[in-house]
C-alpha cells in the first residue's frame, strides 16, 4: 500500500490510526524512517540529535529490556543509554531539562501512575503532559507496548517521538531506528555531541 500519510507530532485525533494501517512501512536494515519516509540511518541520526538539542525537555524512556541486566547485551545498552542521557544533559542549555524516566513494566496501575518517576504504556500521555516533554525516545520497550505508547502519545500530545528499536522499528514513532545496539546508541550520543551549539535552543 502506498501512503501519503505522515507520522507527525499531535495531538492528532481522538483515536488516531496505526501508521501501518495507513500504508507506512518499516525500514529495512541500514535504514530508518522519519515521519513515515524511509531514509538512510545516518540522516536519521542527525535529525534525532537535532530534535534532542532543540527540545525543552528531551527525554529517554528506557524499558524493561534494558533496565534489567538479563544478558550482556542489555547491560551494555543500559550503559550506552546512560551515556546518551549524560551527553544530552551536557549539550543542552540551562533552560532545557534532559530527563531519563523509566518504563519499568507494563502493569496497569490504578488509580494512576506517578508521572514524575515512571511512564506506563497504557497511559503514557500522563507522563508527557506532567513533565511537559516535547521530545522523547523509547528504547528497550517490547515492540507491542512501544507501539501502543507511541500511538497514544501521537493521539493526545504534541511530543516528538523517537524509537530506538532492537527489532524492526516502529511506524508509530515520528522517527525510528531499527536493529538497535549499544554501538548505535553511542553513535547517536556522538552525533548529539558533534552538533552541540549548532542547534537553536527553544525560546523562553
Amino acid at each position, binding site marked *: *500500500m*502506498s501512503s501519503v500519510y505522515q507520522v507527525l507530532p499531535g495531538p492528532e485525533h481522538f*483515536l488516531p*490510526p*496505526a*501508521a*501501518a*494501517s495507513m500504508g507506512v*512501512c*518499516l525500514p529495512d536494515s541500514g535504514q530508518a524512517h522519519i515521519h513515515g519516509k524511509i531514509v538512510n540511518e545516518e540522516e536519521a541520526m542527525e535529525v534525532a540529535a537535532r530534535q534532542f538539542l532543540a527540545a525543552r525537555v528531551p527525554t529517554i524512556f528506557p524499558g*524493561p529490556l534494558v533496565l534489567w541486566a538479563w544478558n550482556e547485551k542489555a547491560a551494555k545498552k543500559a550503559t550506552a543509554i546512560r551515556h546518551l542521557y549524560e551527553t544530552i544533559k551536557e549539550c543542552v542549555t540551562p533552560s532545557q531539562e534532559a530527563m531519563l524516566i523509566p518504563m519499568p*513494566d*507494563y*502493569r*496497569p496501575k*490504578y488509580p494512576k501512575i506517578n508521572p514524575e518517576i515512571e511512564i506506563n*504504556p*497504557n*497511559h503514557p500521555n500522563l507522563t508527557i503532559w506532567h513533565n511537559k516533554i516535547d521530545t522523547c525516545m523509547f528504547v528497550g520497550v*517490547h*515492540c*507491542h*507496548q512501544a*507501539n*501502543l505508547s507511541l*500511538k*497514544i502519545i501521537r*493521539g493526545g500530545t504534541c511530543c516528538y517521538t523517537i524509537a530506538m528499536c532492537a*527489532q*524492526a*522499528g516502529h*511506524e*508509530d514513532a515520528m522517527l525510528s531506528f531499527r536493529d538497535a545496539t549499544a554501538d548505535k546508541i553511542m553513535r547517536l550520543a556522538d552525533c548529539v555531541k558533534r552538533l552541540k551549539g549548532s542547534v537553536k535552543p527553544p525560546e523562553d
Partner: protein
Amino acid sequence: MATQSLVGTTNRAGQTVTDPWELMHATERTPSFFTGSEVIKEAVRRANCDVMIAYPITPQSEAAALIGELFAEGFIGDYFRGESEFAVMSQCAGAAFGGARVFTTTAGPGTMRAMENFPMWAGARLPIQMIVTCRGINSPLSIQPDTLEISYLLNTGMLVWHAETAQDFYDWILKGYMVAEEPDVHLPLALCCDGFFVTHTKDVVNLTPADMCLPPYDPYRSPVPCMDMECPPVRMMRDPFVMKSNYISYATHASWQQEVWAAIERSRKHSIRWLDGLIEVDNADADILIVSSGTAVSQGREAKCMLEDEGIDVGIVKVKTLRPWPAEEIREATRKARHIIVPEFNVTGWMAKEIRATIPNPDRVYAGPHVCGGMTMPPEIIAADIKARLGLRAESLAGRGS
C-alpha cells in the same frame, strides 16, 4: 538474531538447523506422492516444532494422528490430545505464552467451537500455526468440503492464508512460521485448505531434505513479554485491565486492537517475499478473469482451458492470502477485466463480497458459481456461467447423470 546463530547445529531429532531461505529455495527437492495429510506431517517434521496439540475432527484427524508419529520419532517436543477444540486452542495459547513454537489442526465445527480463542491469540501476539481443513459447519451435519468457516476467521486478527494445492500446503507451513514469527508481525496463522480435496487426495509434492529443519522459534524476539503473569497480555486472562470504565482504558484497548491489525499490514512485506506475491496472475489482459482462492482456483484453471478451446480468452487470479487482503494487487490485476467471475465453495460468497468491496466498478463481479455442503464444482459449470455472462448459450448441467 539468535536463531541465525544456530544454523548448522542439530536439533533434538538430529536434523541440521538450516537458514530458512536456503532450506526453501536452495536445497534439493525430492518428488514424493503423498496425500495432503501426509504432506502436513512432512512439513511439520521439518518445522522444528516444540508442541502439537490435537483433537479429532474430520478431515484433519489423519494429519493430527500422523503428527503423533512424529512425536514418537522425536521430532516434536510435546504432543497431546485436548479435551475439546476449545481446550486445544487454549492449551496452544499456554504453550505459546511459554515460548514454544506451536502447531495444531482443526476443521469445521471444531474451528467454530474454538473461535473465542482466535482473537485472544491475535491480541496476545501468539504466532501459533493452525491448519484449517475446511468442511461444512452447519446442521444438518456435513463432513464434506465447504469454505464457509474461513469467513469467520477473517476478522479475528489472525493471518489467514488459503492453500490451493498440497505443494502450497507443504511450503506455506514452513514459510508461515517465518512470516508469523517476525517480531513486527508475531501473529497466529490460520493456514486453510479445502478439506478432502487437498487432505485426502494424492499429489506429487517436492519435499525439502528430511535431515534439515527450520531454526527454532526465538521467544526473545516477541513483541510482548514472555509469560509474565503481572503484565498484559497474560494479565488479561485473569484481570482484564481494560475492563475499567474510563477513557484511558478504552483508548488503550482501542490502540491494542489497532496494533493487531497494524501487525497484519506489516506481514505484507514478509508474505510477499516468502510467497512470491500475495496473488498469482495468469493472463491479466483477458476480458474475463476468474478470481478465487483454494481449490476453486484449480477448477477455474480447468474451465479456462475448456473455454480457450472454444476461442474464449480467460485469465486467472489466485488469491493466496486473505489476511493480509491483497487489495492493491487485486485492483491492479482486475484493472482491464470486464467480467470478474468468483467461483466459491460456500453459500454466502464471501470472496466475491471482499472483491466487490475492493475494486472500482464492482458490478463487474459475478458472485458464482457457488457450491457448498460437499458438492464438487465441475469446471463445466464455471465455463457455463461465464458463457451466460457473455450472452452465449451453454449446455445445462442440471440433468447430468440422469
